[in-house]
């Protein structure tokens, strides 16, 4: 991949998954870039919502944290933290939520809490924040993550945010109102999820990545979609629009 970094590739692929008019719960960093990019390119009416309670934000810079006042200046509406989770997320008003984490398994369950044992952690991570709430309530969960063996695991050390549990049948018993995981976007491929089993399935390979590479970096036997696609190469227009969003390359390393 010559003209763009793997982070740039992932952000551009993620931006393409967003539809005009959708409401997106955005985090800081890479998801923020993906949402802003989609807004500039094909989804001008994408509604950006942040878990700090800002609705229809129009940030003048890359927000430094979820509580950055630049998410408020010129926003459509602001509400309290509890109200954001109650009226918007639990209210079923959010179409897409971005999640990340230290580990993910084949059903899209995510760990952002702890490496090792919960009571005697090897590495204590920040924890759920809004992640579990987002996973439980949005129509589509999108995960952006580098494709590394330490991140893709057979079993997460701690299940912070539910994907399709240990399969879609048991997930249904939880009666979460959300639609569950929708896409996992890595530097190698885009996974979608099997409609019946809820298992992660390679849907599209990026650039010159191969199924072998994907398998090498995934500890379980990867399922492949019946119609495996080849991801469209990022266009110059996409790359330029993206770089203009992060001129200091804070996130586009």
């Amino acid at each position, binding site marked *: 991949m010559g003209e763009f970094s793997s982070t740039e590739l992932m952000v551009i692929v993620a931006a393409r998954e967003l539809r005009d008019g959708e409401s997106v719960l955005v985090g800081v960093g890479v998801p923020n870039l993906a949402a802003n990019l989609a807004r500039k390119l094909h989804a001008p009416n994408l509604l950006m919502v942040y878990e700090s309670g800002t609705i229809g934000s129009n940030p003048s810079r890359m927000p*430094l944290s979820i509580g950055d006042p630049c998410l408020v200046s010129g926003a459509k509406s602001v509400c309290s933290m509890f109200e954001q989770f109650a009226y918007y997320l639990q209210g079923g008003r959010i179409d897409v939520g971005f999640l990340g984490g230290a580990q993910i398994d084949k059903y899209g369950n995510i760990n952002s809490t702890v490496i090792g044992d919960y009571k005697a952690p090897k590495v204590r991570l920040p924890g759920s924040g809004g992640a579990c709430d987002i996973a439980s309530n949005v129509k589509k969960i999108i995960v952006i993550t580098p494709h590394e063996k330490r991140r893709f695991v057979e079993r997460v050390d701690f299940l912070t945010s539910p994907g399709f549990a240990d399969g879609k049948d048991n997930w249904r018993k939880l009666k979460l109102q959300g639609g569950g995981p929708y896409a996992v976007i890595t530097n190698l491929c885009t996974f979608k999820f099997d409609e019946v089993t809820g298992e992660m399935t390679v849907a599209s390979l990026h650039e010159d990545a191969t199924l072998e590479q994907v398998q090498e970096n995934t500890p379980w036997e990867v399922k492949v979609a019946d119609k495996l696609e080849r991801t469209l190469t990022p266009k110059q227009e996409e790359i330029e629009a993206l770089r203009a969003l992060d001129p200091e390359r804070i996130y586009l390393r």
Partner: protein
Amino acid sequence: MDSNKLMSMKEAVSKSVKDADTVYLAGFTHMIPFAAGHEIIRQGRKNLTLARATPDIIYDQMIAAGCAKKLIFSYAGNPGVGSLRCFRRAHEKGIPAPLEVEEYTHFGLSGRLFAGATNMPFLPMRTNLGSGLPPENELIRTVKDPYTGDEVSVVPPLKPDVAVVHVQRADASGNSHIWGITGEQKDTAFAARKVIISAEEIVEESVIRSDPNRTLVPDFIVDSVVHEPWCAHPSYVQGYYDRDNAFYVEWDKLTKEHESTLKYLDEWVFGVEDRSGYMKKIPQSKIDSLKPKPALSAPVDFGSV
């Protein structure tokens, strides 16, 4: 009811914060009352249960200073930067002392505060089910929905002993206008037994009464009012100052070791008398660089008869 509750942060903390209290310094990464945290450290409070959705740097400092025995939280990171090293050192290695944790999702923790503020017996919520959090926290329970028969996750009210809420402007009796990201400020104030308001500006009661919809905290639930400009530095205050992001990045380096952290506390917390002493140590050029361009709200008309 004394209508003038103005006092220094030193007096307010001394009057309201006791050892072993549950303390909640409000602010969802915005308007974090750093000056109150520093004063609590200076006064040597011990065995506190520190509650905050996002412990942020302020609780990292209080943990390093040995104030805390327990942390109630939902996201323990350095927002936009990475880890909170002092929190991790205490929790993973017991330095300077072991730290118990009680953990929720953001909805769970803000829901506990809402239930505390409104004295709800418990709050049913569509989250937690399927997550590994409930098995690790016996306060997250379930009830059977009497309408559908489904199992529903619930959390109990959280009622801190003391809340500190930083606001843009308040009058001398504590009626407070808050805008921008209002986070869990209102819920924290209503949930707590004692409330300390710190404000960027103290204004006439008439300014507050010109816009009562903006008053998220009414005076009669407030115990102390502190006029504390720049209270929230290095975090931000809408309309007043931007985040000192360089400090957030630097904190990651400053706290690589417990000793280097103590050095910071010696200089910036124990080494100053109060917030104005702290601000004197910050170069004017830095202060100027944090001030935003004004963007005034369009007025509305509260006329009635």
